[in-house]
Protein backbone atom coordinates (compact mmCIF):
# COMPACT_ATOMS: atom_id res chain seq x y z
CA UNK A 1 0.00 0.00 0.00
CA UNK A 2 1.82 3.08 -1.17
CA UNK A 3 -0.60 5.96 -1.66
CA UNK A 4 1.99 8.71 -1.85
CA UNK A 5 1.52 11.24 -4.60
CA UNK A 6 4.21 13.70 -5.62
CA UNK A 7 2.57 16.99 -4.81
CA UNK A 8 -0.58 18.96 -4.29
CA UNK A 9 -0.40 19.93 -7.96
CA UNK A 10 -0.30 16.29 -9.06
CA UNK A 11 -3.26 15.57 -6.79
CA UNK A 12 -5.51 18.38 -8.01
CA UNK A 13 -4.76 17.43 -11.61
CA UNK A 14 -7.16 14.53 -10.97
CA UNK A 15 -10.06 16.89 -10.43
CA UNK A 16 -12.32 17.88 -13.35
CA UNK A 17 -14.30 21.09 -13.64
CA UNK A 18 -17.67 20.74 -11.98
CA UNK A 19 -16.46 18.44 -9.23
CA UNK A 20 -17.86 18.41 -5.70
CA UNK A 21 -15.10 18.75 -3.11
CA UNK A 22 -15.26 18.51 0.66
CA UNK A 23 -12.62 20.59 2.43
CA UNK A 24 -11.72 20.12 6.08
CA UNK A 25 -11.23 22.95 8.51
CA UNK A 26 -13.10 25.11 11.00
CA UNK A 27 -12.53 28.72 10.10
CA UNK A 28 -8.88 28.69 9.03
CA UNK A 29 -7.95 25.99 11.56
CA UNK A 30 -6.98 22.67 10.02
CA UNK A 31 -7.63 23.64 6.42
CA UNK A 32 -5.84 21.83 3.57
CA UNK A 33 -3.70 24.84 2.66
CA UNK A 34 -1.58 23.09 0.03
CA UNK A 35 -4.48 21.56 -1.88
CA UNK A 36 -6.51 24.76 -1.89
CA UNK A 37 -3.52 26.71 -3.21
CA UNK A 38 -2.86 24.07 -5.89
CA UNK A 39 -6.51 24.07 -6.95
CA UNK A 40 -6.27 27.84 -7.27
CA UNK A 41 -3.14 27.54 -9.41
CA UNK A 42 -4.79 24.99 -11.65
CA UNK A 43 -7.91 27.08 -12.06
CA UNK A 44 -10.42 24.23 -11.88
CA UNK A 45 -13.86 25.79 -12.20
CA UNK A 46 -17.54 25.35 -11.54
CA UNK A 47 -16.87 23.63 -8.24
CA UNK A 48 -19.25 22.72 -5.45
CA UNK A 49 -17.37 23.15 -2.19
CA UNK A 50 -18.58 21.53 1.03
CA UNK A 51 -16.87 23.22 3.95
CA UNK A 52 -17.96 24.46 7.35
CA UNK A 53 -16.84 28.00 6.49
CA UNK A 54 -15.72 29.87 3.38
CA UNK A 55 -12.28 31.15 4.37
CA UNK A 56 -11.38 34.82 4.50
CA UNK A 57 -10.47 37.35 1.85
CA UNK A 58 -7.12 36.30 0.44
CA UNK A 59 -6.73 33.01 2.30
CA UNK A 60 -8.22 29.56 2.33
CA UNK A 61 -11.37 29.07 0.28
CA UNK A 62 -11.40 32.86 -0.10
CA UNK A 63 -8.83 32.63 -2.90
CA UNK A 64 -11.01 30.18 -4.82
CA UNK A 65 -13.98 32.51 -4.47
CA UNK A 66 -12.00 35.51 -5.67
CA UNK A 67 -10.91 33.52 -8.73
CA UNK A 68 -14.58 32.61 -9.34
CA UNK A 69 -13.81 28.90 -9.25
CA UNK A 70 -16.70 28.07 -6.95
CA UNK A 71 -20.27 27.75 -8.21
CA UNK A 72 -21.89 26.55 -5.02
CA UNK A 73 -21.02 26.33 -1.34
CA UNK A 74 -22.56 24.06 1.29
CA UNK A 75 -21.57 25.49 4.68
CA UNK A 76 -22.80 26.23 8.19
CA UNK A 77 -21.48 29.73 8.81
CA UNK A 78 -20.03 32.19 6.34
CA UNK A 79 -19.42 35.85 5.88
CA UNK A 80 -16.01 36.61 7.35
CA UNK A 81 -15.30 37.27 3.72
CA UNK A 82 -16.30 40.36 1.73
CA UNK A 83 -15.94 38.71 -1.67
CA UNK A 84 -18.11 35.82 -0.51
CA UNK A 85 -20.71 38.30 0.68
CA UNK A 86 -20.68 40.12 -2.63
CA UNK A 87 -21.12 36.96 -4.72
CA UNK A 88 -23.74 35.64 -2.31
CA UNK A 89 -25.83 38.83 -2.39
CA UNK A 90 -25.60 39.08 -6.18
CA UNK A 91 -26.46 35.38 -6.42
CA UNK A 92 -23.36 34.68 -8.46
CA UNK A 93 -22.65 32.07 -5.83
CA UNK A 94 -25.21 29.50 -4.76
CA UNK A 95 -25.14 28.96 -1.00
CA UNK A 96 -26.73 26.16 1.00
CA UNK A 97 -26.61 26.80 4.74
CA UNK A 98 -26.93 23.74 6.99
CA UNK A 99 -26.96 23.50 10.81
CA UNK A 100 -23.49 22.45 11.89
CA UNK A 101 -24.49 19.23 13.62
CA UNK A 102 -26.66 18.22 10.68
CA UNK A 103 -23.80 19.11 8.34
CA UNK A 104 -21.45 16.83 10.31
CA UNK A 105 -23.98 14.03 10.62
CA UNK A 106 -24.91 14.14 6.92
CA UNK A 107 -21.23 13.77 6.04
CA UNK A 108 -20.83 10.93 8.51
CA UNK A 109 -23.94 9.26 7.03
CA UNK A 110 -22.44 9.68 3.57
CA UNK A 111 -19.35 7.80 4.63
CA UNK A 112 -21.18 5.23 6.74
CA UNK A 113 -23.77 4.01 4.23
CA UNK A 114 -26.76 5.42 6.10
CA UNK A 115 -29.58 6.18 3.66
CA UNK A 116 -31.14 8.93 5.78
CA UNK A 117 -31.58 9.83 9.44
CA UNK A 118 -33.94 11.71 11.71
CA UNK A 119 -32.47 14.61 13.69
CA UNK A 120 -34.28 16.91 16.14
CA UNK A 121 -32.19 19.82 14.85
CA UNK A 122 -34.12 22.41 12.91
CA UNK A 123 -37.58 20.95 13.52
CA UNK A 124 -40.18 23.63 12.80
CA UNK A 125 -37.64 26.02 11.27
CA UNK A 126 -36.83 27.08 7.71
CA UNK A 127 -34.31 24.23 7.63
CA UNK A 128 -37.14 21.70 7.84
CA UNK A 129 -39.13 23.17 4.96
CA UNK A 130 -39.73 20.65 2.20
CA UNK A 131 -38.41 17.84 4.39
CA UNK A 132 -40.29 15.07 6.12
CA UNK A 133 -40.87 15.63 9.84
CA UNK A 134 -41.77 12.78 12.15
CA UNK A 135 -42.38 12.15 15.81
CA UNK A 136 -40.69 9.36 17.77
CA UNK A 137 -41.38 8.93 21.49
CA UNK A 138 -42.73 12.45 21.79
CA UNK A 139 -39.84 14.24 20.09
CA UNK A 140 -40.06 15.81 16.65
CA UNK A 141 -37.40 15.03 14.08
CA UNK A 142 -36.48 16.11 10.56
CA UNK A 143 -35.38 13.60 7.92
CA UNK A 144 -31.94 14.43 6.53
CA UNK A 145 -30.03 12.80 3.67
CA UNK A 146 -26.32 11.99 3.45
CA UNK A 147 -23.72 14.30 1.94
CA UNK A 148 -21.07 12.79 -0.32
CA UNK A 149 -18.44 14.25 -2.58
CA UNK A 150 -16.26 13.36 -5.53
CA UNK A 151 -13.16 14.47 -3.65
CA UNK A 152 -12.21 15.31 -0.08
CA UNK A 153 -9.27 17.55 0.84
CA UNK A 154 -8.05 16.56 4.27
CA UNK A 155 -5.31 18.07 6.42
CA UNK A 156 -3.65 15.70 8.88
CA UNK A 157 -0.88 16.12 11.40
CA UNK A 158 0.94 12.83 10.90
CA UNK A 159 0.30 10.32 8.17
CA UNK A 160 1.85 7.22 6.62
CA UNK A 161 1.85 5.85 3.10
CA UNK A 162 -1.09 3.55 3.89
CA UNK A 163 -3.11 6.70 4.44
CA UNK A 164 -3.41 6.45 8.23
CA UNK A 165 -3.84 9.90 9.73
CA UNK A 166 -3.76 11.71 13.04
CA UNK A 167 -4.82 15.29 13.70
CA UNK A 168 -3.57 17.93 16.08
CA UNK A 169 -5.91 19.55 18.61
CA UNK A 170 -8.90 21.38 17.11
CA UNK A 171 -7.39 21.09 13.63
CA UNK A 172 -9.21 17.74 13.61
CA UNK A 173 -12.73 19.20 13.18
CA UNK A 174 -14.40 18.03 9.94
CA UNK A 175 -11.32 16.38 8.43
CA UNK A 176 -11.91 12.80 9.69
CA UNK A 177 -15.55 12.60 8.59
CA UNK A 178 -14.92 14.19 5.21
CA UNK A 179 -12.19 11.60 4.61
CA UNK A 180 -14.90 8.92 4.78
CA UNK A 181 -17.46 10.53 2.49
CA UNK A 182 -15.67 11.13 -0.79
CA UNK A 183 -14.96 8.86 -3.71
CA UNK A 184 -11.34 10.07 -3.66
CA UNK A 185 -9.78 11.46 -0.50
CA UNK A 186 -6.51 13.37 -0.76
CA UNK A 187 -4.61 13.98 2.46
CA UNK A 188 -1.84 16.49 3.10
CA UNK A 189 0.14 16.04 6.31
CA UNK A 190 2.74 17.91 8.29
CA UNK A 191 4.82 14.80 8.91
CA UNK A 192 4.97 11.65 6.81
CA UNK A 193 6.14 8.65 8.83
CA UNK A 194 6.73 4.96 8.13
CA UNK A 195 3.81 2.57 8.60
CA UNK A 196 3.80 1.42 12.21
CA UNK A 197 5.20 4.67 13.59
CA UNK A 198 1.70 5.88 14.40
CA UNK A 199 0.39 3.90 17.37
CA UNK A 200 -2.51 1.87 15.89
CA UNK A 201 -4.62 2.86 18.92
CA UNK A 202 -4.06 6.54 18.04
CA UNK A 203 -4.96 6.42 14.36
CA UNK A 204 -7.98 8.66 13.80
CA UNK A 205 -8.46 8.12 10.07
CA UNK A 206 -7.67 4.52 9.05
CA UNK A 207 -5.85 4.28 5.71
CA UNK A 208 -8.84 2.69 3.98
CA UNK A 209 -10.38 6.15 3.63
CA UNK A 210 -7.41 7.80 1.93
CA UNK A 211 -6.53 7.36 -1.74
CA UNK A 212 -3.61 9.83 -2.02
CA UNK A 213 -1.28 11.36 0.53
CA UNK A 214 1.61 13.83 0.43
CA UNK A 215 3.84 15.81 2.73
CA UNK A 216 2.69 19.43 2.87
CA UNK A 217 4.35 22.58 4.10
CA UNK A 218 5.43 25.13 4.97
CA UNK A 219 2.08 25.93 6.61
CA UNK A 220 0.97 29.50 7.21
CA UNK A 221 -1.77 28.60 9.72
CA UNK A 222 -3.25 32.06 9.82
CA UNK A 223 -5.17 32.97 12.96
CA UNK A 224 -8.57 34.60 12.54
CA UNK A 225 -9.07 35.88 16.08
CA UNK A 226 -5.94 36.13 18.14
CA UNK A 227 -7.13 36.51 21.72
CA UNK A 228 -4.39 36.52 24.36
CA UNK A 229 -4.14 37.16 28.05
CA UNK A 230 -1.36 38.79 30.00
CA UNK A 231 1.21 36.42 31.39
Amino acid at each position, binding site marked *: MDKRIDSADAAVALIPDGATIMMGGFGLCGIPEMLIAALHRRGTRDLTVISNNAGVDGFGIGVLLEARQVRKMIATYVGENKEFERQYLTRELEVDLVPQGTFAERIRAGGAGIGAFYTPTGYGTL*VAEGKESREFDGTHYVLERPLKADFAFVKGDRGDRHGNLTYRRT*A*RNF*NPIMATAARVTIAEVETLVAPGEIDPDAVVTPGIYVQHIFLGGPYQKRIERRVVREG
Partner: protein
Amino acid sequence: MDTRLRIIRRVAAELRDGDYVNLGIGLPTLVADHIPPGIDIVLHSENGLLGVGPSPTEAEVDPDLINAGKETVTAVAGASYFSGADSFAMVRGGHIDLTVLGALEVDQAGNLANWMVPGKMVKGMGGAMDLVAGARRVVIAMEHSTRDGQPRIVPRCTLPFTGLRVVNRIVTDLAVIDVTRDGLVLREIAQHTTLEAVRALTSAAFVVDAPLKRF
Protein backbone atom coordinates in the same frame (compact mmCIF):
# COMPACT_ATOMS: atom_id res chain seq x y z
CA MET B 1 -22.75 48.19 36.63
CA ASP B 2 -22.26 47.62 32.92
CA THR B 3 -25.32 46.03 31.29
CA ARG B 4 -23.35 43.18 29.75
CA LEU B 5 -21.50 42.48 32.97
CA ARG B 6 -24.81 42.29 34.84
CA ILE B 7 -26.09 39.69 32.40
CA ILE B 8 -22.85 37.71 32.47
CA ARG B 9 -22.73 37.58 36.27
CA ARG B 10 -26.32 36.49 36.55
CA VAL B 11 -25.82 33.80 33.93
CA ALA B 12 -22.72 32.57 35.78
CA ALA B 13 -24.99 31.86 38.75
CA GLU B 14 -26.80 29.30 36.55
CA LEU B 15 -23.74 27.05 36.52
CA ARG B 16 -23.92 23.94 38.71
CA ASP B 17 -20.94 22.03 39.97
CA GLY B 18 -20.12 19.21 37.56
CA ASP B 19 -21.93 20.76 34.60
CA TYR B 20 -20.76 20.31 31.03
CA VAL B 21 -21.47 23.67 29.45
CA ASN B 22 -21.44 25.15 25.96
CA LEU B 23 -21.18 28.92 25.85
CA GLY B 24 -22.30 30.51 22.61
CA ILE B 25 -20.24 32.95 20.59
CA GLY B 26 -20.05 36.55 21.84
CA LEU B 27 -21.42 37.59 25.23
CA PRO B 28 -22.04 34.01 26.49
CA THR B 29 -18.34 33.17 25.98
CA LEU B 30 -17.46 35.81 28.56
CA VAL B 31 -19.31 33.84 31.26
CA ALA B 32 -16.21 31.63 31.44
CA ASP B 33 -14.36 34.43 33.23
CA HIS B 34 -17.01 34.64 35.98
CA ILE B 35 -17.42 31.06 37.17
CA PRO B 36 -18.34 31.19 40.87
CA PRO B 37 -15.78 29.80 43.34
CA GLY B 38 -16.26 26.13 44.20
CA ILE B 39 -18.05 25.41 40.94
CA ASP B 40 -16.14 22.96 38.75
CA ILE B 41 -17.47 22.87 35.20
CA VAL B 42 -16.15 21.65 31.85
CA LEU B 43 -16.58 23.83 28.79
CA HIS B 44 -17.50 22.30 25.45
CA SER B 45 -16.65 23.99 22.20
CA GLU B 46 -18.50 22.56 19.24
CA ASN B 47 -15.49 22.70 16.91
CA GLY B 48 -14.24 19.64 18.80
CA LEU B 49 -12.90 20.43 22.27
CA LEU B 50 -14.08 19.43 25.70
CA GLY B 51 -12.20 21.30 28.43
CA VAL B 52 -11.72 24.81 27.05
CA GLY B 53 -9.19 26.76 29.13
CA PRO B 54 -8.48 30.48 29.37
CA SER B 55 -7.07 32.54 26.52
CA PRO B 56 -3.43 31.74 25.81
CA THR B 57 -0.48 33.93 26.65
CA GLU B 58 1.43 35.19 23.59
CA ALA B 59 3.80 32.27 24.02
CA GLU B 60 0.97 29.74 24.23
CA VAL B 61 -0.89 30.85 21.09
CA ASP B 62 -1.48 27.85 18.85
CA PRO B 63 -3.29 28.19 15.51
CA ASP B 64 -4.39 24.55 15.88
CA LEU B 65 -6.26 25.37 19.07
CA ILE B 66 -9.30 27.61 18.75
CA ASN B 67 -12.86 27.75 20.05
CA ALA B 68 -16.08 27.83 18.03
CA GLY B 69 -15.77 31.61 17.83
CA LYS B 70 -12.42 31.02 16.07
CA GLU B 71 -10.58 32.65 18.95
CA THR B 72 -7.30 31.24 20.18
CA VAL B 73 -7.82 29.33 23.45
CA THR B 74 -6.06 26.82 25.66
CA ALA B 75 -7.16 23.42 26.91
CA VAL B 76 -7.30 22.35 30.57
CA ALA B 77 -5.71 19.18 31.97
CA GLY B 78 -8.18 16.41 31.18
CA ALA B 79 -9.33 17.97 27.91
CA SER B 80 -10.08 15.97 24.77
CA TYR B 81 -10.35 16.67 21.05
CA PHE B 82 -12.80 15.06 18.63
CA SER B 83 -14.39 15.48 15.22
CA GLY B 84 -17.37 17.62 14.32
CA ALA B 85 -19.55 14.51 14.09
CA ASP B 86 -18.52 13.37 17.56
CA SER B 87 -18.94 16.89 18.91
CA PHE B 88 -22.52 17.18 17.74
CA ALA B 89 -23.30 13.63 18.77
CA MET B 90 -22.46 14.93 22.23
CA VAL B 91 -24.70 17.97 21.77
CA ARG B 92 -27.67 16.30 20.11
CA GLY B 93 -27.48 13.26 22.39
CA GLY B 94 -28.34 15.33 25.45
CA HIS B 95 -24.92 15.17 27.09
CA ILE B 96 -24.45 18.93 27.44
CA ASP B 97 -26.06 20.05 30.70
CA LEU B 98 -26.36 23.70 29.81
CA THR B 99 -25.94 25.96 26.83
CA VAL B 100 -25.98 29.73 27.01
CA LEU B 101 -26.86 31.53 23.80
CA GLY B 102 -27.68 35.01 22.63
CA ALA B 103 -31.03 35.81 21.01
CA LEU B 104 -32.78 38.27 18.77
CA GLU B 105 -36.22 37.23 20.08
CA VAL B 106 -37.71 34.73 22.50
CA ASP B 107 -41.43 34.16 22.69
CA GLN B 108 -44.01 32.94 25.23
CA ALA B 109 -43.75 29.34 24.07
CA GLY B 110 -39.99 29.28 24.49
CA ASN B 111 -39.42 29.55 20.76
CA LEU B 112 -36.11 31.14 19.88
CA ALA B 113 -35.01 33.33 16.95
CA ASN B 114 -31.31 34.14 16.83
CA TRP B 115 -29.86 33.39 13.44
CA MET B 116 -31.48 35.37 10.69
CA VAL B 117 -33.03 38.71 9.88
CA PRO B 118 -34.86 38.61 6.54
CA GLY B 119 -33.37 41.11 4.12
CA LYS B 120 -30.02 41.17 5.87
CA MET B 121 -26.97 39.09 4.98
CA VAL B 122 -27.54 35.63 6.44
CA LYS B 123 -24.32 34.24 7.82
CA GLY B 124 -25.69 30.85 8.82
CA MET B 125 -26.88 29.16 11.96
CA GLY B 126 -23.60 27.45 12.80
CA GLY B 127 -24.26 25.09 15.70
CA ALA B 128 -27.10 27.04 17.32
CA MET B 129 -29.96 24.87 16.04
CA ASP B 130 -28.22 21.74 17.27
CA LEU B 131 -27.40 23.24 20.64
CA VAL B 132 -30.98 24.28 21.36
CA ALA B 133 -32.31 20.93 20.15
CA GLY B 134 -29.86 18.91 22.19
CA ALA B 135 -28.71 20.63 25.36
CA ARG B 136 -30.57 19.64 28.53
CA ARG B 137 -31.04 23.25 29.54
CA VAL B 138 -31.03 26.32 27.30
CA VAL B 139 -30.43 29.70 28.92
CA ILE B 140 -30.69 32.82 26.80
CA ALA B 141 -28.42 35.74 27.66
CA MET B 142 -29.45 38.98 26.00
CA GLU B 143 -30.31 42.61 26.51
CA HIS B 144 -33.94 42.93 27.48
CA SER B 145 -34.88 45.19 24.56
CA THR B 146 -33.36 46.40 21.32
CA ARG B 147 -31.31 49.58 21.18
CA ASP B 148 -34.40 51.54 20.17
CA GLY B 149 -36.43 50.08 23.04
CA GLN B 150 -38.35 47.38 21.18
CA PRO B 151 -39.17 44.27 23.27
CA ARG B 152 -37.27 41.07 22.51
CA ILE B 153 -39.47 38.89 24.70
CA VAL B 154 -42.52 38.72 22.52
CA PRO B 155 -45.85 36.89 22.23
CA ARG B 156 -44.66 35.13 19.07
CA CYS B 157 -41.29 35.42 17.32
CA THR B 158 -41.45 37.54 14.18
CA LEU B 159 -38.03 36.40 12.97
CA PRO B 160 -37.28 32.91 11.62
CA PHE B 161 -37.04 30.28 14.35
CA THR B 162 -33.83 28.67 15.56
CA GLY B 163 -35.84 26.13 17.50
CA LEU B 164 -39.36 25.51 18.79
CA ARG B 165 -40.07 25.30 22.55
CA VAL B 166 -36.39 25.09 23.37
CA VAL B 167 -35.69 27.92 25.83
CA ASN B 168 -35.73 27.17 29.56
CA ARG B 169 -34.69 30.51 31.02
CA ILE B 170 -34.07 34.05 29.78
CA VAL B 171 -31.51 36.21 31.57
CA THR B 172 -31.42 39.89 30.62
CA ASP B 173 -30.02 43.05 32.13
CA LEU B 174 -33.47 43.61 33.70
CA ALA B 175 -34.94 40.24 34.52
CA VAL B 176 -34.77 36.48 34.87
CA ILE B 177 -37.75 34.83 33.19
CA ASP B 178 -38.51 31.11 33.03
CA VAL B 179 -40.40 29.39 30.25
CA THR B 180 -42.84 27.00 31.89
CA ARG B 181 -45.65 24.81 30.66
CA ASP B 182 -48.02 27.57 31.72
CA GLY B 183 -46.13 30.36 30.00
CA LEU B 184 -43.50 32.85 31.11
CA VAL B 185 -42.78 33.38 34.80
CA LEU B 186 -40.82 36.41 35.96
CA ARG B 187 -38.53 35.12 38.73
CA GLU B 188 -36.16 38.00 39.40
CA ILE B 189 -35.64 41.62 38.47
CA ALA B 190 -32.43 43.61 38.54
CA GLN B 191 -31.55 45.82 41.50
CA HIS B 192 -31.75 48.98 39.44
CA THR B 193 -35.13 48.44 37.81
CA THR B 194 -38.82 48.12 38.64
CA LEU B 195 -41.54 45.67 37.77
CA GLU B 196 -43.25 48.42 35.78
CA ALA B 197 -40.10 49.01 33.73
CA VAL B 198 -39.86 45.30 32.95
CA ARG B 199 -43.53 45.21 31.94
CA ALA B 200 -43.05 48.20 29.66
CA LEU B 201 -40.19 46.51 27.81
CA THR B 202 -41.78 43.03 27.54
CA SER B 203 -44.55 42.47 25.02
CA ALA B 204 -45.07 38.81 25.96
CA ALA B 205 -47.48 37.94 28.75
CA PHE B 206 -45.88 36.70 31.95
CA VAL B 207 -46.86 35.96 35.52
CA VAL B 208 -44.87 37.29 38.43
CA ASP B 209 -43.34 34.84 40.86
CA ALA B 210 -43.80 35.64 44.52
CA PRO B 211 -41.65 36.56 46.26
CA LEU B 212 -39.96 38.29 43.35
CA LYS B 213 -36.22 38.17 43.90
CA ARG B 214 -33.66 40.86 43.06
CA PHE B 215 -30.32 40.21 41.36
